[in-house]
């Protein structure tokens, strides 16, 4: 569940994880040649479009999600000059406030670190076959999933 790919010297790691994401395990990325590190973290919000969320479950097409995530990361290190690129997406039942996704990019320059990070999260949201089942305080349930464009 932890495919590590070497593309042009960059360290690239994409993972689907049923266990909580620990930022401490992700930081310290890259080498001292990297002046810039960006971390993006998605968290389970306590509401969606104004409706209070009480419980949340991520269901994934796991093997395809791993494949797409690896493809996204490979495309990204190919397009930008990066020395470390790591992305983890949670599956399973998450508590409010828990991390659903984390992306760490280390790069020589900050423009690259921001752009590559943003690209990875947009592609994850667009392409990863993962669906979120949100249960609201009023008892209703909604499925939320990959979408062509979303901010």
């Amino acid at each position, binding site marked *: 569940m932890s495919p590590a790919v070497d593309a042009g010297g960059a360290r690239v790691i994409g993972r689907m994880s049923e266990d909580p994401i620990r930022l401490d395990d992700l930081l310290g990325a890259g080498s001292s040649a990297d002046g810039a590190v960006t971390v993006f973290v998605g968290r389970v919000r306590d509401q*969606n479009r104004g409706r209070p969320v009480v419980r949340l479950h991520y*269901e994934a*097409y796991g*093997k*395809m999600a791993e*494949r797409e995530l690896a493809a996204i990361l490979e495309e990204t290190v190919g397009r930008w000059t990066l020395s470390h690129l790591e992305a983890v997406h949670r599956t399973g039942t998450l508590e409010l406030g828990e991390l659903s996704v984390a992306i760490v990019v280390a790069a020589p320059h900050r423009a690259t670190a921001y752009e590559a990070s943003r690209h990875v999260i947009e592609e994850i*949201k667009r*392409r990863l*076959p993962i*669906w*979120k*089942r949100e249960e609201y305080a009023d008892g209703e349930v*909604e*499925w*939320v*999933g*990959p*979408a*062509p*464009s*979303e901010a």
Partner: protein
Amino acid sequence: MTVTILLFANHRELANAASVELELSADANVREAVDRLRSLPGLACLPAEPTVAVNREYASLERDLNPGDEIALIPAVAGG
């Protein structure tokens, strides 16, 4: 030939099944497999052009199928 169709999220709940096996003619494509799914309880209202994957890659509805292919219906739901 036999193919497997994986169902996720609201599709899985509607069909009350995570996967379905279909017996199709030897020259069937993805669209024919999806059309067959519409006869299942709960899946009558599948969209005309659902997003699909074949063997873990996004694929066209016109793609020809081979025996043992793993088709997945990718539900179009609200973006998150």
